[in-house]
C-alpha cells in the first residue's frame, strides 16, 4: 500500500448469498484517483463495493480506509468515516421528494450548518435537479435518477465515492454527461472507485483500472494501458 493510499483491500474473500463472489481480491485506491473495476456480470464488481461499504462482510482479508480497518465496522459508521455510495440501479427513495433524498444523503453529517452550502454545490453540479426538488424521486427520468443518486452520495461530503454502474440504462448522450460530471467531481477533490459495465468509458475517465474475473483480479494497470491490452479489448470491449 502506498503512502497516499486511501482505500486498500487485501486478499478479500466474500460470499454473496450462496455464491463465493470474491476469491482473494487485493486493490488500492490512492487519494485523488479515479480507479475503475471492470469485468463481466457476475465477476464480483458489485460485491467488492459492498465489502467496502460494509453491506457484505468479507470471510477473510482486510479492508482498510484512511489507515483504519473497516471490514468489521457497521455500514452506518463506515459512511461517517467518509465513504459514500451511489448504488447499482440508482435505488433512490422513490416515494420521497428529491430534496428529501438529498437530505438523507447528509444524514450522517454532524456539521449541520454546512449542509445548505453543500446542497447548493450539488445543485450546481446537477442543475436539472433544482427544478425537481419538490417532486417524488420515483417520477424522475432514468438520467435524473442517476444524478440524484450521485448527488445524494455527494451530500455526505465523502472523501471517497463508490459509483456502481452509473451508465446503466442511460442513452449515449447522457452517459457522456454523467462521465463528464464524474471527472468534474474528481477534480473537485473526491476520490472515486468506479464499477462499470461500459469498460471503454470507464477506462477513459479513470487513472487506473483492475480487471475482475470470477472473483479474482486478473489484470491491473494504468487505464490507458488497459484500454490497449489485448485481453481487455477482446473480452470487454467486444473487439476481435
Amino acid at each position, binding site marked *: 500500500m502506498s503512502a497516499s493510499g486511501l482505500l486498500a483491500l487485501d486478499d478479500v474473500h466474500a460470499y454473496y448469498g450462496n*455464491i463465493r463472489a470474491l*476469491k482473494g481480491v487485493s486493490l488500492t485506491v490512492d487519494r485523488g484517483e479515479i480507479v475503475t473495476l471492470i469485468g463481466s456480470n457476475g465477476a464480483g464488481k458489485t460485491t467488492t463495493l459492498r465489502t467496502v461499504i460494509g453491506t457484505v462482510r468479507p*470471510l477473510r482479508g482486510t479492508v482498510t480506509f484512511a489507515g483504519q480497518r473497516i471490514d468489521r465496522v457497521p455500514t452506518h459508521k463506515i459512511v461517517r468515516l467518509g465513504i459514500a455510495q451511489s448504488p447499482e440501479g440508482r435505488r433512490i427513495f422513490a416515494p420521497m421528494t428529491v430534496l428529501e433524498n438529498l437530505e438523507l444523503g447528509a444524514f450522517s453529517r454532524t456539521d449541520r450548518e454546512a449542509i445548505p452550502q453543500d446542497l447548493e454545490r450539488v445543485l450546481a453540479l446537477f442543475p436539472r435537479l433544482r427544478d425537481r426538488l419538490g417532486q417524488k424521486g420515483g417520477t424522475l427520468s432514468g438520467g435524473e435518477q442517476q444524478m440524484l443518486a450521485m448527488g445524494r452520495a455527494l451530500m455526505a461530503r465523502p472523501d471517497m465515492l463508490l459509483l456502481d454502474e452509473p451508465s*446503466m440504462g442511460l442513452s*449515449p448522450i447522457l452517459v457522456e454527461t454523467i462521465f463528464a460530471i464524474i471527472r468534474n467531481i474528481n477534480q473537485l477533490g473526491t476520490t472515486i472507485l468506479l464499477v462499470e459495465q*461500459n469498460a471503454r468509458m470507464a477506462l477513459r475517465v479513470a487513472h487506473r483500472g483492475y480487471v475482475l474475473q470470477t472473483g479474482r483480479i486478473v489484470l491491473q494497470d494504468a487505464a490507458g494501458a488497459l484500454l490497449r491490452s489485448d485481453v481487455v*479489448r477482446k*473480452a470487454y*470491449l467486444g473487439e476481435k
Partner: protein
Amino acid sequence: MTDSGRWRPLPAALLVTALVGYPFLDRWLQAQTVHAVTDAMIYVLLALGLNIVVGYAGLLDLGYAAFFAIGAYTMGLLNSPVLGSPLYGHAWSFWVVIWIAALVSAGLGVVIGAPTLRVRGDYLAIITLAFGEIIPVAIRNLGDITIDIGGWRPVERLNLTGGENGVNPVGRPYLPGVNFDTDFIPWYFLILVIGAGSLWAMNRMRDSRLGRAWMAIREDETAADCTGVNPVKTKLLAFGLGASFSGFAGSFYAAKLQAITPGAFEFNVSIMLLCMIVLGGMGSLKGVILGGMLITLFDRILLAQLTFLVRWIGRSLGSGILASVDLTLWRWFFFGLGLVIVMLVRPEGLVGRRVRPPAADVDEREEALALVAGPPRPRAEAIPGWLREAAAPPAASPTTPPVLAVRGLTRRFGGLVAVSEVDLVIPARGIVGLIGPNGAGKTTFFNLVTGLLRPDHGEIRLGGESLVGLRPHAIVGRGIARTFQSIRLFQNMSVLDNVLVGEHCRLHASVAGAVFRPPAVVTEEGRARARARDLLAFVGLGDKDGELAKNLAYGDQRRLEIARALATEPRLLLLDEPTAGMNPRETDTLTEFIGLLRHELGLAVLLIEHHMEVVMGISDRITVLDYGTRIAEGTPTEIRRNAKVIEAYLGTGYEQELVSG
C-alpha cells in the same frame, strides 16, 4: 429426500408389535392412558394433514382448525340421531359419513384455497386465519337463524348447526362384535388404522410427481411455473388433500367424543397443530409425528406432573405461590414459548435437515481441481438416447418453418416502454444471440416469451402456434425451456429431484396413481428417474444426484439449471447469461456444450450473453436491443461493423479508439 428410508424388517416388526401390544399392556397395568393416546393420535393426524399444506407446499395455513370443524360437523350432522330439523336425524353409518366428511373437507379446502392463489406468504396466512375465524362464528350463529318467510307461517327458526350447544349426541361406529360404547381399545385401533393409512398415502404422495411439484412450488413458485409445474392446480391439490385428512380426523373426533361444540375448533387449535409441525420439522413425516406426540404428551401428562412437582417444591420451600401453582393454566403460554424457541434455536425442527453453512474449503478444492482438469468436456456420445428421440428431426431443410417467430412485441411498465415493437425469428436449429446494454429489455423479452409477463401487443408463435396469453407452465409444455440470470434452483431439493421436476410436464401420474401406484405409474416413475440420471451424467453431475441443490458449487448450479431445462424436452432453449460468473475454462466448456445441443439434438437456442467472445463465436444471428427497441439484427460480422451498435453498446468514440489504438 425421503425420510422413510429403506425398508428394514426388524424395526418395522418391533414397531407393529409395540403399537398393537400397547393398549393391552396399558389395560394390564391399569395405566388408563389409551384414551389420551387416542386423542393425541387425532391431533397427530391433523398435523400430518396440515403438513401437506405448510411443510410440502410452503403455504402457511393459520386456519386449519376450520377443516377439522367441518369434518366433525359433517359427522355430527349426518350421523346424529337427534336434532329436530329435517336436515338431521338420519343417523347415517359412521363408515359412510367418514368418507363424506373427507370429501366435504377437501372441497372446502379447494374453495378456501382458490381465492388465496393470487396472494403469497404472509397475506395468504392471514386469509386462512380469517377463514378459520369466520367458520366457527358461522357455526355458532347458524344454530339460530330467524327467517321471515311471510304468509301463514311468518317466522321460521332454523337450527342448522346446534349453535353454541353443538351437536349431541353423535352416533358411534358400528361393527359386529366390537364394543365401541364403553371400551377405548377399539377406538385406538380405529385411529391407528386411519392414521397408518393416511401416513402410507402421504408418504407415497410425497415421493411422487405431485410431491415434487409441491416442494418446487414451496422453493420457488416462479421457477416451478417456468419448469412446467402448474401452480394453480398444485396448490389447490395441496389445500384439498391436506384438508381431506382433517375430514377423517374430525369425524373420528366427533364420534369418539359423542358431542361437538364450536369452541373446540378455534384459532388455538390451529396454532397447536402448527406448533407440532414446527417442532418436529416442517415437511418431515417422522418429525410431524414426533412433534405431535411430544406436544400432546406435554399437554396432557407432563404439565400435570410438573404441577405436582412444582407444588411439592413450593411446599418444601414454604413458598405459597409455588405451592398453589397450576401449570396447566400455562399451557398456551408454553405453546407460544415453544414456537418462539424452536424458531430461534432450531428453525428446521427436531428432525429437519440442518442447513449446511458454506464450506469455503470444499469450494476451493473443487475449484483447484477444476483449474487443473477443467469441468468435464461435453461429449456427444453422452447425450441420453431418449433426449435425441424427443428432439427435433435432425435434417432441417431451408424451408422448415422457424421455431420461434416474434412480431411487434411490446410491453410497457408505467410510462416506460421496456420492449417496443421487437421482431425476432429463430430458425430451426438456430442459435440466436440477444445483446444490448444492461436495462435494454433483454430479460423482459425473455419473460414475455416464457409467459411470465403478458405483452401489451405483438405476437409470439412457436412453430406456428400462438403463445400469447398462455401461462408459463403451458408454454413449457409447448416446448420452450429457460434458465435464469440469477440461478433459480429448488434449493432444498436434491439434484435428482430438481431434474425430475423438469420432467413433470412430460409425466402423467395422477393423485390416485401416485398413491396406489399401478404398474403404468411405476414404469413411468422408473423411466423418469433413469432419464434424470442420464441427463445428470451428461452435464457432468452424475455423482451428485443426492446432494441438495443449494450445496452445489456455482458452476454446478448453472449446469443443473440447464439439465432441469433440458428435462422438459424443449424445442427451444432460452439461456439468460449462462456464463455469468464463470471462469474462462468453464465458459469454453459451456459454449461447446451449447453447440453440441444444437448439433446433436437440433435444439434451437436464444442466448442473452455479455461475453462478446461467446456470443460472436456461437450465434448464427444476433439481435441487438437498446431502450427496448431492436437497433440491429444480423450475422456476428455484420453486428460487429454496425455503426449503431458500436455507438449504443460497444461505446461511443469507438472509431477514434480504433484509429488511435
